[in-house]
């Protein structure tokens, strides 16, 4: 009750010097606003990066077979034996040397089975074939060259959803059906926004022989993707192996496994588990070089996120300088206010005010000014970051309104208020009543 009265006195005190109070508040507004702008744009940047990384790699762990390197060296050695100085795989093939028997093993259906049965750290795994073909739709080349052969698990592994039609079914895969599923980004770009091409025919041209495929579905576009998605054209895995002449009749190029954890340690465990299972199944001796790579696609994005976090922190610190300037202004004004109202303090003390009353009154004044600055700064920061994300192309749609921004605004301004006014308030409370009265 007593404190409430003192807070009321503080509010009345502020009203008498509106211009000074407003300027003080402005200082805090700019400080808090700057911090919030940086934090909210930083959060946005981080979120955008997360979305982008998830959109491209979807947070999968990828296993990639070694398709060249040691193999090529091996062939080079053979070529030297055969008095062929050197040459690429194609040159060797042209010279009539069948490279098939030297081809690496790639990844096989058995590997997929082993992972599905033994690995506990992953949700699902999808084998993939990556190949190239010219994509022709209604006589026009579509701006997409890579065609990916996948199994129905693709949707689950890449957390994707259908926009139109259906996805590749198990039956499509086992019968190597001539069906194709497109990504919405490709459809939007090449056929126009909102066009539903399901049921249309598409040509995939491999070695100048066009093949007819029926479009059975469109995968919905993912948030964060700019331009055309990384896997715009999907066909059944078996179709890719058998029809698209990939030279890998029983092999796959890539396994993508979904690991649902975002905890780095759990993801490292998943990578280690995949390594162990595949090395055992493929009979690779301990210590020997594996003929495959396991890579956590999130690792790269984690690194990027770390950089963004550091950047945000550094920028926040710089923005924090303006907050410090604002709070010094507040402290200065509070000191001036105490000096100016020394007489009033003496009078209040003569009329029965205790030191605590005076302390609370001036503390409340400082905290109220700072909180007003905090609320204003919140408005400025949120408004500013939204304006920034609309006006500046590089920052487009980056602003995010997260609850921590409110906590920062109010918490920081509360701290600023207390820190900046505790000393002036203490000074006011410590004034002896007679000294204070004499100053009038």
């Amino acid at each position, binding site marked *: *009750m*007593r404190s*409430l*009265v003192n807070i009321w*006195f503080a509010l*009345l*005190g502020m*009203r*008498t010097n509106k211009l000074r109070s407003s300027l003080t508040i402005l200082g805090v507004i700019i400080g808090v606003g700057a911090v919030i702008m940086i934090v909210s744009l930083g959060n946005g940047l981080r979120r955008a990066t997360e979305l982008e990384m998830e959109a491209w790699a979807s947070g999968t762990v990828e296993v990639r077979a070694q398709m060249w390197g040691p193999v090529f060296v091996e062939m080079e050695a053979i070529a030297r034996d055969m008095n062929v100085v050197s040459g690429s795989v194609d040159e060797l093939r042209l010279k009539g040397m069948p490279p098939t028997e030297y081809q690496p093993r790639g990844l096989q259906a058995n590997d997929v089975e082993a992972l599905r049965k033994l690995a506990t750290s992953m949700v699902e795994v999808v084998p993939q074939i990556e190949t190239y073909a010219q994509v022709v739709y209604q006589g026009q080349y579509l701006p997409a060259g890579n065609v990916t052969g996948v199994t129905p698990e693709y949707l689950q592994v890449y957390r994707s959803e259908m926009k139109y039609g259906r996805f590749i079914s198990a039956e499509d895969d086992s019968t190597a059906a001539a069906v194709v599923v497109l990504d919405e980004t490709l459809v939007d770009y090449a056929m126009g926004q909102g066009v539903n091409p399901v049921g249309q025919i598409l040509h995939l041209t491999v070695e100048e022989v066009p093949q007819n495929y029926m479009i059975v579905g469109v995968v919905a576009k993912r948030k964060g993707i700019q331009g055309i998605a990384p896997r715009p054209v999907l066909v059944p895995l078996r179709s890719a192996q058998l029809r698209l002449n990939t030279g890998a009749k029983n092999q796959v190029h890539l396994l993508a496994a979904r690991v649902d954890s975002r905890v780095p340690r759990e993801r490292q465990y998943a990578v280690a588990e995949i390594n162990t299972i595949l090395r055992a199944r493929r009979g690779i001796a301990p210590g020997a070089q594996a003929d495959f790579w396991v890579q956590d696609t999130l690792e790269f994005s984690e690194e990027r996120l770390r950089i963004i976090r550091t950047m945000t922190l550094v920028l926040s610190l710089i923005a924090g300088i303006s907050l410090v300037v604002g709070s010094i202004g507040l402290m200065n004004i509070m000191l001036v206010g105490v000096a100016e109202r020394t*007489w*009033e303090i003496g*009078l*209040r*003390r*003569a*009329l*029965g*005010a*205790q*030191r*605590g*009353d005076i302390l609370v009154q001036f503390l409340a004044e400082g905290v109220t000014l700072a909180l007003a600055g905090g609320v204003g700064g919140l408005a400025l920061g949120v408004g500013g970051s939204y304006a920034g994300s609309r006006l500046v192309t590089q920052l487009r749609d980056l602003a995010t309104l997260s609850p921590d921004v409110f906590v920062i605004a109010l918490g920081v301004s509360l701290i600023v208020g207390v820190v900046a006014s505790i000393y002036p308030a203490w000074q006011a409370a410590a004034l*002896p*009543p*007679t000294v204070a*009265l004499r100053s*009038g």
Partner: protein
Amino acid sequence: METREAPSIVRMDGVGKVYPMGRIRVHALRDVTLSIRQGDFVAVVGPSGSGKSTLLNLIGCLDLPSEGTYQLLGRNVQSLKDNELSRLRGEGIGFVFQDYSLLRRFDALRNVELPHYYVHGRANHGRALQLLSEVGLAGRAAHKPTELSGGEQQRVAVARALMNSPFLLLADEPTGNLDSKSGRELIDLLQRLNAELQLTMVMVTHDPSVSSRAHRVIHLQDGQIVDDRLQESAGLPPDAALGAG
């Protein structure tokens, strides 16, 4: 006089007050011994710098003596903590200052209520309005000090001093800033309060027409009491007192 037999409110024994002024120590008061009883109307007079205000500050517990003992209502003031002194001032002592000392941003009502906030933590409009009407300002409760004349402002200050029903009212040159008519009216008011409420009053003044209205005049010089006498003519209007002299 029956007031002589009343209990002693203020009792000072060998009180001195020393202020350090740089390297020298200045005795503002020296060996002051006095007793003020309930219902007394005391005027403290003397040339400026004689220690009048210092004495009043000591009596009002705004400052503590550096020598001697001071008992207020039988309690040793020097042994009280700062918060207890604040409480004692708020509950028991009313102050009236030369410059009225009203808060400009508060209207008359809030100014009168101010001591009540500090003692009881809440407003008391009823009592404040009643006091304002007692000092003749019934219709001025909502006026700010700047909208009141000097005499009216000083009467608001008197109402404020009475807010918590004090046992002691201290006035430091209450008529110093007032014209003679307003000053006379204010002293009439103080005298009436003294008579009706048996309110003990100590008033610092250098105006003989004001001090002549007190029951008792204490004369200070160089920090020491040089004269302390009762006045026969006390209570009469100044013209009558002059006539009688």
